[in-house]
């Protein structure tokens, strides 16, 4: 098994080499073989493992005018979910002859394309290229078609694909005065027209002589650079990094002019203040007038854009992106007193904003920032990246990313295109922050390699304009999804497979969870994400393992018992995982009878380990998701555990068992990960169940852990509702199978550590057998080489997954951040929430590897170190008190909140499993929920008004201000709602208005509020509607279901409520003010 796993890992390690491989093959074999390989060989994934590097590296040095475009280009068609797909365009787009380069080799047998003399291009395109017999090459050859026109084209119409190139170009550019040879193309759509010869040559390879005169005409046009329209002091840039290595012989004139322009340093900066009050915008340099009449903009968005260049495709906006940035940010900062302000934390007590804290906006040009990734998806702890590791070390702040890559998005552009444009060297996906050197080449923003723009990319399916590669959706959206062609598959996309493993020992039946789960599953069976291929299966276990045969034709499910748990085997090869749609009745039948089947069971043992092995064996051919429901410590078979919790020793933070006691679950999880199986664990246990060991099964297989402490259907009814709601979300949420996520960053930065649930397969590659929209990840970064001359850096995460519909998709997020050189700027851009989130992740690692007290010390030291570094290096005047930069004003508060969080608090009142579960959550929750669990929000709810309320779908949702977490903010006349993420408390004061008690709580008086009230009655009053709308709005935003506890002074839960009052003192922890004093003492030492 081990070797199998290794083999698999090695194979899938090449996942991203897919395209490279095809290219390599392409050179060697020519398009026909290429397409064949697409259709057949690619699928089995075998045999690429070792050959890839050789092929690829062999291919690189040849450096050929290859157009990956030779692949299929299938815009439109039935698959398209996208808004962007070119459905219905109907027209067959004319392809410039560049594509023909790759067509031509058909006549030759091997890697000729490189050697084709350009003259051949300008020669008549032989319609002999229609020697493609279209029918013979399925989708792979449907290249060239932009419309829905089906792939199988009669040979006669083949000409359509490439031959209608209207304009005879050479003269046009001259007459129009345009500097861009390519834009001068005019594409007339004349289907059925006679094939025209095309004398145009790709500028990328051999600049036609016609262009040269233009080049010389260019420079004179430059001097009259106009001031930016937005106004602002023109800045003279002291130095400008060259736009690109002028090594390539491409359109010389263009490149030169661009470089010259930069060299002259005529850059205009515009300062704009954005909402955070600390953003500085910079305009792009205006473009030489020569550009401005290059061609018609075409895209409607163009006119509205405040960019200074009105030119069409020519302006190459991105080179400007960074060039003027450093100077801009330097001078811009001086205009921003707010961001630079330092705060004496000891004096200013009310620093908590009353609205949810927003992520800081990176200090980038407004236009770039507009394109930047949503901070909810991709966030960096330092929005100003320090230039060197030394600077980062000096700042004493962690550098890292927080990701929520698979978040449910309401608007996600999906691109269906056979050629996914990526950097040839580092495989970065094309993104809004690349720079277009000219129309035919783009420079990767991660490795700075210059790449060719493939032919398809010249056409913009959104605006239906040719020749504007920088207007393509890929270059306009930082978050985008690609439909991946077959190169991205190691095997055919797997069907969605769901396996449920239920604990049915006596203890489990006692809790009554099976009824709830079966019922929820029954209700949501049709909502399981999937298609006609969806498979489902069930296993139950106590001290034996029970399989259920759901064979078609059976009148009722057949139970097969395997009692040999030492050497688990699958009793029958088929019918244990069955098609959901074809066998729905049998499955429903099973789910109905399941809860009653074991009611008389007296078996108390639990053979979880063997059951998981069986589940793994069942799933390994396909991959999929295993959902395990466990209610006690596994006691027999492999993976059995012993109780390690000693309640008396909870206090001593030293001896608690945070590390797994066996590596069985971890090894099994790694095997699962290798077979694309993820295990989700639902732990519904009253006693200690050693989550530290059990949790490994989910942690390394990219699953998730759910923990319902002391679940019981009668004694703990709120948990039942919670389980029901969360299970519903779990069953119906989106899911991605056989996923891998790679995080790339600009050369010079490197990834240090990953946090989350996955297996790290390489230094930048995460293996995620399943990916779900509720999982967050964190990445620690380090600055390996100094980022000199880089005004900005970019990060890109690419998640390749199989959707439940069986499509292979890639979701790409790209974020761009400025680089700064001074400590002050680093502090200015600190994102306190992201820092806290990353520190929490690091602290979990630390408490596992060292000890809890170590982790706590490290957290406190993080605050002390950063604040004392700020004090000593940034503040020129030593003031008394505890000074903190404005951006970090909440840092001590958040760290104190972390120290008081269940994962890191000391004291006896927390169970080991609960602590470990919280740690799992720290690792796996997206940042917003992690912050909510760490630092709850407190609202006053007895006087909700519609003032400033949100209106969503005709519902009015009041937005009360957030209060500080201190009892001093509570008043006896009020009612307060504390939203702590997974739980909510509504505290009702003794003298709370009668109005609230009766109108919202529906009870006559304060005294009659029940002890354990967990629901608000729906009353016909405005107050009740408002409160309920507010609470349900809060609940809707998150994937889990927070229980609402309504408490009053005598309630037993009051202590939990007060626990969350972070600014107050508790028996074992400091109050906020004391904490600040402690820090001040250390800082001033």
């Amino acid at each position, binding site marked *: 098994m081990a070797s199998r796993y*290794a083999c698999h*890992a*090695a194979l899938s*390690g*090449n996942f*991203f*080499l897919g395209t*490279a491989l095809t290219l390599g093959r392409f050179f060697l074999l020519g398009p026909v073989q290429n397409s064949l390989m697409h259709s057949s060989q690619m699928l089995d994934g075998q045999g690429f493992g070792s050959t*890839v*590097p050789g092929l*690829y*590296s062999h291919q*690189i*040095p040849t450096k050929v005018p290859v157009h990956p475009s030779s692949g299929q280009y299938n815009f439109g068609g039935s698959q398209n979910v996208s808004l962007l797909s070119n459905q219905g365009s109907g027209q067959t787009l004319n392809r410039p002859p560049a594509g023909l380069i790759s067509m031509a080799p058909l006549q030759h047998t091997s890697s000729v394309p490189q050697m084709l003399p350009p003259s051949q291009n300008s020669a008549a395109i032989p319609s002999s290229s229609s020697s493609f017999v279209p029918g013979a090459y399925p989708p792979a050859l449907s290249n060239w078609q932009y419309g829905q026109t089906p792939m199988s084209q009669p040979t006669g119409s083949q000409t359509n694909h490439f031959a209608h190139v209207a304009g005879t170009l050479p003269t046009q550019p001259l007459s129009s005065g345009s500097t861009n040879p390519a834009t001068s193309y005019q594409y007339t759509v004349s289907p059925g027209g006679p094939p025209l010869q095309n004398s145009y040559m790709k500028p990328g390879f051999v600049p036609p002589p016609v262009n040269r005169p233009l080049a010389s005409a260019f420079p004179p046009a430059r001097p009259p650079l106009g001031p930016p329209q937005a106004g602002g002091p023109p800045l003279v840039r002291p130095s400008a990094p060259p736009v690109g290595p002028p090594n390539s012989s491409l359109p010389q004139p263009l490149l030169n002019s661009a470089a010259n322009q930069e060299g002259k340093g005529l850059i205009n900066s515009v300062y704009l203040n954005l909402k955070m009050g600390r953003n500085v915008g910079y305009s792009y340099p205006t473009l030489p007038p020569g550009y401005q009449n290059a061609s018609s903009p075409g895209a409607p968005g163009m006119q509205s854009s405040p960019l200074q260049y009105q030119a069409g495709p020519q302006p190459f906006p991105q080179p400007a992106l960074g060039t003027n940035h450093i100077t801009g940010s330097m001078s811009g900062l001086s205009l921003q007193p707010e961001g630079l302000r330092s705060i004496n934390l000891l004096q200013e007590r009310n620093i908590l904003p009353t609205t949810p804290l927003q992520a800081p906006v990176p200090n980038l040009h407004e236009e770039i920032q507009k394109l930047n990734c949503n901070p909810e998806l991709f966030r960096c702890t330092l929005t100003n990246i320090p230039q060197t590791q030394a600077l980062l070390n000096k700042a004493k702040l962690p550098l890292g990313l927080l990701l929520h890559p698979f978040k449910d998005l309401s608007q996600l552009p999906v691109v269906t295109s056979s050629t996914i444009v990526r950097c040839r*060297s*580092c*495989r970065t996906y094309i993104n809004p922050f690349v720079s277009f050197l000219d129309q035919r080449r783009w420079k990767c923003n991660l*490795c700075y390699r210059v790449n060719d723009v493939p032919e398809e990319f010249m056409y913009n399916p959104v605006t239906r304009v040719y020749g504007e590669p920088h207007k393509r959706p890929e270059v306009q959206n930082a978050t985008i999804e690609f439909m991946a062609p077959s190169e991205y598959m190691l095997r055919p996309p797997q069907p969605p497979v769901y396996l449920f493993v239920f604990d049915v020992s006596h203890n489990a039946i006692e809790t009554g969870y099976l009824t709830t789960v079966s019922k929820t599953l029954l209700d949501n069976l049709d909502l399981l994400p999937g298609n006609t291929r969806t498979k489902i299966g069930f296993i139950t276990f106590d001290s034996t393992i029970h399989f259920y045969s759901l064979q078609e034709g059976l009148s009722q499910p057949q139970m097969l018992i395997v009692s040999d748990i030492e050497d688990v085997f699958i009793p029958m090869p088929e019918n244990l995982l069955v098609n959901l749609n074809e066998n729905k009745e049998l499955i429903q039948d099973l789910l109905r009878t399941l809860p009653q089947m074991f009611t008389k069971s007296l078996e108390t043992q639990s053979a979880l380990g063997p059951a998981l092995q069986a589940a793994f064996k069942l799933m390994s051919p396909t991959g999929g998701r295993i959902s395990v429901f466990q209610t006690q410590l596994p006691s027999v078979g492999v993976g059995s555990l012993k109780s390690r919790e000693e309640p008396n020793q909870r206090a001593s933070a030293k001896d608690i068992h945070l*590390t*797994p*006691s*066996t*590596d*069985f679950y*971890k*090894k099994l999880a*790694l095997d699962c990960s290798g077979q694309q199986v993820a295990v989700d664990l639902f732990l519904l246990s009253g006693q200690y169940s050693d989550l530290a060991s059990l949790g490994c099964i989910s942690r*390394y297989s990219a699953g998730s852990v759910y923990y319902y402490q002391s679940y019981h259907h009668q004694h703990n009814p709120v948990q039942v509702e919670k389980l029901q709601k969360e299970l519903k979300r779990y069953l119906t949420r989106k899911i991605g199978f056989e996923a891998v996520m790679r995080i790339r960053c600009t050369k010079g930065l*490197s*990834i*240090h*550590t*990953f946090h989350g649930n996955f*297996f*790290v*397969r*390489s*230094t*930048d*590659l995460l293996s995620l057998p399943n990916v779900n929209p509720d999982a967050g990840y964190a990445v*620690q970064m*380090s600055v*390996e080489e100094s980022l000199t001359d880089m005004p900005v850096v970019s990060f890109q995460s690419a998640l390749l997954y199989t959707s439940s519909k069986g499509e292979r998709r890639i979701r790409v997020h790209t974020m761009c951040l400025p680089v700064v050189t001074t400590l002050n700027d680093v502090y200015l851009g600190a994102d306190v929430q992201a820092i806290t989130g990353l520190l929490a992740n690091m602290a979990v690692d630390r408490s596992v590897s060292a000890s809890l007290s170590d982790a706590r010390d490290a957290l406190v030291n993080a605050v002390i170190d950063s604040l004392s570094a700020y004090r000593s290096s940034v503040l020129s005047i030593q003031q008394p008190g505890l000074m903190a930069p404005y951006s970090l004003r909440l840092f001590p508060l958040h760290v104190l909140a972390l120290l008081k969080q269940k994962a890191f608090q000391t004291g006896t009142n927390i169970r080991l499993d609960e602590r470990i579960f919280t740690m799992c959550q720290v690792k796996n929750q997206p940042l917003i929920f992690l912050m909510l669990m760490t630092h709850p929000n407190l609202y006053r709810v007895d006087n909700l008004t519609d003032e400033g309320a949100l209106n969503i779908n005709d519902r009015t949702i009041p937005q009360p201000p957030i209060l500080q977490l201190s009892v001093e903010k509570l008043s006896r006349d009020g009612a307060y709602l504390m939203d702590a993420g997974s739980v909510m408390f509504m505290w009702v004061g003794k003298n709370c208005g009668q109005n609230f008690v009766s109108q919202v709580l529906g009870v006559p008086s304060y005294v009659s509020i029940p002890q354990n009230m967990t629901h608000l009655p729906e009353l016909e009053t405005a107050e009740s509607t408002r409160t309920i709308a507010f609470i349900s709005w809060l609940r809707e935003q998150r994937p889990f279901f927070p229980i609402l506890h309504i408490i009053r002074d005598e309630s037993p839960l009051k202590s939990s409520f007060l626990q969350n009052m972070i600014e107050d003192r508790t028996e074992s922890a400091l109050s906020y003010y004391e904490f600040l004093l402690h820090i001040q003492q250390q800082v001033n030492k």
Partner: protein
Amino acid sequence: NIFKFVQFKFLLCSYLITFDELKTDYKNPIDQCNTLNPTVEKVKKIKRVKIALKLVLPEYLIHAFFCVMFLCAAEWLTLGLNMPLLAYHIWRYMSRPVMSGPGLYDPTTIMNADILAYCQKEGWCKLAFYLLSFFYYLYGMIYVLVSS
């Protein structure tokens, strides 16, 4: 003395092997990542780490075996020189992550930059130590040959 001679000869071969292994396994992959195609390098790097994982235990065993041989030959000085490394190996093995099988590195954490860097540093240090001791043994062997 002939016993010593055989032993040194054996040592010579073994250390050559170990040296070679270490050189290939712990070659700094980051240096190579600046070449044309980092993707391929990364794949190579993973493979290298995997091979390295398999070779660590044999290395420990060989070293322990030599120490025993030195003990038999009553080479107290050599033994003393090797003791720290032996102790380090034992400590390393004792404090390995929880594992049911043999092996020292946890596949789930090896890609962590800190651990990877530590392992690389460890590899280089050991390589230096082995090289030095190799020459010392060579010297010892020749000395014995000449003097006998």
